């Protein structure tokens, strides 16, 4: 357990520092790149929790698609790529206070509820048993049985979003 705790501490620290840089840096491109660090650290946390499928999805979707989309968006619109001085607005102190308040509430709530809980130890659990219950295969089974309706609805949703995005974005 010691190794996992040390790994968690390192990842959490990296994620927090990078997250602070996302909002404090004066360069939009740097902010997007710091976001990559945050999201990758969260992905690594999922690996620590033995949720390898979620970790892979996190890397593929967030870093592979969303951050790349941000960067394309910055390049394709006429935003400044270098340092900008007017990136912060007047509401940053209100935002900071709200953020700290939310942090306080959520920390209290989560510590109060789960502070004494421990992850179940893995000693004596066979590899097969673990994969059958929690592995990628189990996620796949759930998607195509219990969560079949949401899965099918999402496929229609993607089609609708695609059609709508083309209508709004196309030049005519």
């Amino acid at each position, binding site marked *: 357990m010691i190794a996992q705790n040390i790994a968690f501490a390192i990842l959490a620290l990296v994620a927090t520092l990078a997250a602070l840089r996302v909002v404090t840096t004066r360069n939009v491109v740097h902010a997007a790149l710091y976001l990559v660090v945050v999201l990758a650290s969260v992905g690594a946390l999922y690996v620590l929790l033995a949720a390898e499928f979620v970790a892979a999805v996190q890397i593929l979707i967030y870093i592979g698609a969303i951050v790349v989309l941000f960067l394309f968006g910055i390049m394709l619109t006429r935003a400044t790529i270098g340092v900008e001085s007017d990136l912060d607005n007047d509401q940053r102190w209100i935002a900071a206070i709200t953020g700290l308040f939310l942090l306080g509430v959520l920390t209290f709530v989560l510590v109060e509820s789960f502070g004494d809980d421990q992850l179940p130890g893995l000693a004596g659990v066979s590899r097969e048993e673990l994969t059958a219950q929690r592995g990628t*295969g189990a996620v796949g089974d759930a998607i195509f049985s219990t969560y079949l309706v949401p899965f099918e609805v999402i496929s229609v949703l993607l089609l609708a*979003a695609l059609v709508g995005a083309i209508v709004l974005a196309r030049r005519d």
Partner: protein
Amino acid sequence: MPPVFDTPAIDYHAFAPEIAMVVTLVVLLFVDLVFEERGRWATATVAGIGLLASVVPVLSLAVDGADRSLFGGAYVVDNFALVLKALFLVAGYVTVLISTDYIADGDYYEGEYYFMLVSSLLGMTVMASARDLISIFVALEMLSIPAYLLAGWRKRDLRGNEASLKYYLLGVFASAVMLYGMSLVFGVSGSTLLVDINQAISRGVDSVPLVTVGIVFIVVGFAFKVSAVPFHTWAPDTYQGAPTPITAFLSVASKAAGFAALVQIVFIGFLGREDVWAPMFWVLAALTMTVGNLIALRQTNLVRLLAYSSVAQAGFMLAPFAVAADIPADRGGVGAATGAVVTYLLIYAGMNLGAFAVVMAVARKTRSAEISAYGGLFAYAPGLAVLMGVFVFSLAGIPPLAGWYAKFVVFKTLLDAGTVAAVTLAVVAVVNSVIALFYYASVARQMIMEPAPEAETARVRVPGSLGAALGICAVATLAFGAFPGLIAQLGDLALLGVLP
């Protein structure tokens, strides 16, 4: 050990309305693809027929009568779900009717417009049956994302862009807050099924702060969707900037879907935790009614007035939530609150869609939605003026129009609950009904008493489909008002389904 996968048993009858809608979507895309410009006029017809065809399986399921629970209770087809599905499909059909000429006359993408409309309706029909957090969230996104796009359909219009962007940004923010709340509730209960969540959070007192924060976040997310004060700020700008048929659609169908989800989450999932949500709903209901009405008083544009009035109407629909747990069992208990909400939604859909249909018919001639443009309407278009009078006085709750019965059931639940809080809320609601009557009556006064601007008195030509929509809404408003028994039966049917 070879992997084992149990193929889920699928009841295709239960999914028939949704399958019919997906078929409609595919046909719409194909008509647009194959016939190109020549087939544009047909897309409205295809969408209308598709929606009416989707009502058929809803009726056959209702005749069959058996409650169907699929995927371990994640997807339930019961009377509550069927009544709401029928409401969404009919409201969608009326939206297609009022859109037909508006979209064909303007320079809009037609096939894609109806594709988006039916997609959003698909999300709503799924929402009516969704009894687990993931299904509810996916259904909410399914109904919202096409709606964000539709709000900005007038893409060369700055107000249209503002409407879409405000709705989108605040909408995804509310979704994120709600999703976080769902993750907290899932963390405590270990299940996404509403029934299991109810078992877990009403059983013990563990993790009270966590449950509280989870419930608050989820309710806030839906409060945005139903434009409850203080989460209503997007509504007036979006309603004014969006194409008028979409404004009607958002203020009726999208709001009804938000309430459908609230009823299921709160009355199935969070029953037994009314100490958390009852005071929240009390404050939301009182604020929503009062703020919505006070701002509506100052409006000079009829679409904005209807936007704020629809905010205020949402306050009346939130009121039964605040007192649901205090209604004694011999007066119907929580079921009575469900029945009141569903009854209000059904009646509100008819009268509000009707009011927007009149606005569109008049705007075809005057090119304006300012209230001052309605002067003299009674003199040169008496039919439209009388219909507008019917719809606004019904919204105000004047007997014998349907709106009075909607208000009556809400007051009845408040007084049946009988607690001090409930009676206070009833007093707030009475005061608000009086304020609302003032601005609804001022619209009628403008139509009858004031002269027409610039002596413009040519007749208003109402196209066939818009006329049909007006007819459907007027018949619903008058019939439900004269024979409230009809709607009461639907409301009673609906409450049978939800109760655990």
